[in-house]
């Protein structure tokens, strides 16, 4: 029910109306735990910008001088934790030195957050990507809500993580897994994050208060880095693994056009196990990548795509799509729409093509959806329509274009 929507996120004590921060809310609860809420002004999703990090720096200073019993770091946005860095600030970078200076300032803030001498716990819902995940990694503990998704998508922009992520992620998680995630840019769900040891617990909003209290007061069972991690981070082992990673990367993205994966592998091979060296090297490597034509082009494409999403999102919401023709293309369009939460009537005079489309949809949903109930619901939304009845109530009608030789 919409009426209750505002109560869904557990955000600690109600913040005062006159917050002294633009992009944050900071409160303390009855246990003396500080709730630091990311709430970037004027937007619906949090991203990390220079001014936001500057403000975070001031908050960390305040927390250092008046230390709470514990610190909760989470987002006040319904959309999720932090979607990553503010990519706007990457546009048009041409001078590696300037980038390195800027990223150095950001590093300092994150390092200070990590060094805070209070138990700190990130509570993560929704997307926690790139720079957002790096903020979470700077906390001592991480609690994920069921719907959380984690990932380092930097590689899609021709970059690698640049806010200490290459260091903290490979320390915490089996480096083979960590490197694979950073090299592919894939996201993982909360359950997988737990099994990797990236988060200490997975829970639901209704248990956040209790979970936070347990975390701050040392009662939370922590995810332990596997014994294998330090072994895999040893020099000779790294050399062997790194060459394997390079040959894998070569298959997907040749070095000549996509330097980022190779820069990331080099970084890890040369510096893993030596924290300060790796942190420094990460800044320089990140700055070098940022000014490459590859990164700048991919960033441009990123903005084009965002714009297109906005255009697509601004129209009326389509709730019911009617697809005419259950052949390969029609069936797949129908399955895609059902996957996007739309009601789809898939019309065909014959049962055979519809049956084939249902099987393909069922196979697809089985692959992309973990929960059996999600698969069932998506299949329920995909309605075979042998009489073409769906057309009368549809918001959008898609008729397959036939290839014609005439």
């Amino acid at each position, binding site marked *: 029910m919409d009426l209750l929507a505002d109560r869904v996120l557990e955000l600690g004590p109600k913040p005062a109306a006159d917050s002294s921060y633009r992009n944050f809310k900071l409160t303390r609860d009855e246990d003396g735990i500080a709730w630091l809420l990311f709430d970037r002004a004027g937007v619906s999703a949090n991203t990390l910008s220079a001014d936001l990090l500057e403000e975070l720096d001031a908050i960390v200073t305040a927390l250092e001088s008046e230390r709470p019993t514990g610190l909760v770091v989470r987002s006040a946005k319904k959309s999720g934790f932090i979607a990553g860095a503010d990519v706007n600030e990457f546009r048009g970078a041409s001078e590696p030195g300037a980038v390195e200076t800027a990223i150095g300032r950001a590093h300092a803030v994150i390092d200070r957050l990590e060094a805070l001498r209070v138990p700190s716990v990130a509570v993560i819902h929704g997307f926690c990507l790139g720079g957002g995940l790096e903020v979470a990694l700077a906390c001592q503990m991480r609690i994920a809500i069921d719907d959380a998704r984690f990932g380092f998508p930097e590689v899609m922009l021709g970059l690698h993580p640049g806010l200490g992520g290459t260091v903290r992620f490979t320390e915490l998680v089996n480096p083979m897994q960590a490197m694979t995630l950073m090299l592919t840019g894939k996201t993982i769900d909360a359950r997988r994050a737990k099994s990797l040891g990236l988060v200490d617990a997975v829970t639901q909003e209704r248990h956040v208060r209790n979970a936070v209290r347990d975390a701050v007061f040392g009662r939370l069972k922590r995810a332990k880095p596997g014994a294998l991690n330090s072994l895999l981070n040893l020099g000779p082992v790294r050399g062997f693994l790194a060459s394997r990673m390079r040959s894998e990367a070569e298959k997907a993205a040749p070095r000549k056009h996509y330097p980022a994966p190779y820069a990331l592998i080099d970084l890890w091979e040369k510096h893993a196990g030596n924290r300060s060296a790796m942190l420094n090297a990460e800044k320089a490597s990140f700055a070098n990548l940022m000014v490459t034509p590859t990164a700048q082009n991919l960033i441009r494409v990123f903005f084009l795509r965002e714009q297109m999403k906005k255009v697509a999102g601004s129209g009326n919401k389509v709730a019911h799509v009617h697809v005419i023709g259950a052949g390969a293309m029609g069936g797949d369009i129908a399955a895609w729409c059902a996957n996007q939460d739309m009601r789809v009537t898939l019309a065909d005079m014959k049962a055979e093509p519809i*049956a084939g489309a249902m*099987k393909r949809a069922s196979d697809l949903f089985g692959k992309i959806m973990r929960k059996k109930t999600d698969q069932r619901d998506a299949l329920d939304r995909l309605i075979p329509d042998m009489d073409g009845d769906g057309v009368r109530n549809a918001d959008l009608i898609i008729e397959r274009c036939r290839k014609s030789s005439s």
Partner: protein
Amino acid sequence: MARPVFIVDGSRTPFLKARSGPGPFTPVDLAVQCGRPLLARQPFAPDAFDQVILGCVNVIADEMNPARVAALRLGMGEQMVAFTVQINCGSGMQSIDTGYRYIREGISDLILAGGAEALSHAPLVWPNSGVRWFAGFAGAKGLGAKIAAALKVKPSYFKPIIGLERGLTDPITELNMGQTAEKVGHLFGITRAQSDAYAAESHQRLAKAQKEGFLKGEVETAFSRDGKFYDHDDGVRPDSTAETLAKLRPVFERPWGQVTAGNSSQITDGASWVILASETAVAKHGLTPKAVILDSQWSALDPSIMGLGPVLSASALLKRNGLTLQEVETWELNEAFATQVLGCLAAWNDDKFCREILGLDGAAGEIDRAKLNVDGGAISLGHPVGTSGNRIVLHLVNAMKRLGTRRGVATECIGGGQGGAMLIETV
């Protein structure tokens, strides 16, 4: 003030004969399969209904209150009230009857009433002795106690009981449903040859209906996840004749009984829905009523002759409405067993029975076979118990529209010793 209640539309799945193991659909899957095309062809949105009522006898553990699960899966909205009703073989008609009363009394205007049953999903049940052993084993603390508990096991604990067989046995008289049909047949002198001839005709009538397209608009093709589709009632055997059926051996009372697998209804999966509407809903959404429900009646009798239930309920229904047997132009009398259907017809023709049991002045008379189960019935289609009562109402409406008749009765016998009947008129 009683308001008229209209049947405006309806649909069902093909009835799928239980073969080996569970079929492709659960009860709710079936309800969703035929509910989706039905809702898609309405001029109103699925959340326009006031409530959903579903008959289901063998509810599976994953689908408690299948009516509500079906309503949500059909996209009818979180605010859709939905409940499940159960009166054994009359459940699918009980859902219509309940909806009819809500609308008649002015409480609701638009109701989706159905029946769903997947007999092929009836569970195997472990014997109680085995369940008790497992509870003791699971509760034992410590290795020694565990081993001691494990050693008490007996092979008989693991002999499963077929849940369906239990469900088809009357718990009071301990008679299987087939045996109750044998008893009715005996009381009215029904012969094996008559039963087989009736059964063969049921198959031929359904085969003709399928061939002529009489079921179009009523039966909606069902699609399973593995890419198969089901577009017709697959228990039909058009080549069945009285001669071929005569070769089958009795299954319930060997060796001399007359009820065989061939002249009994089939074990089947299927679901059916009808849409009930008030005058207000008809006007609001611009619907075209097909029929109006005039009255309904439930009756009860000795469970060991439950097959005569239709005679009691339909007779009471006609009496209250001042009608004779002959004034009903089209009949759907659920074919639980050929012997039982013929027993009902014989009872209506039995002077003593009609006088003493039904309180009539004499025999009610014949029902012309041409008016009865015109497109086959449960013997050829199958009898998904919670669904059949709904199907016979739905099909009665469609058959009367096709035949141009006005007044019809749908009635069924109910395991446990009851009968249900509904009087409808086409509009």
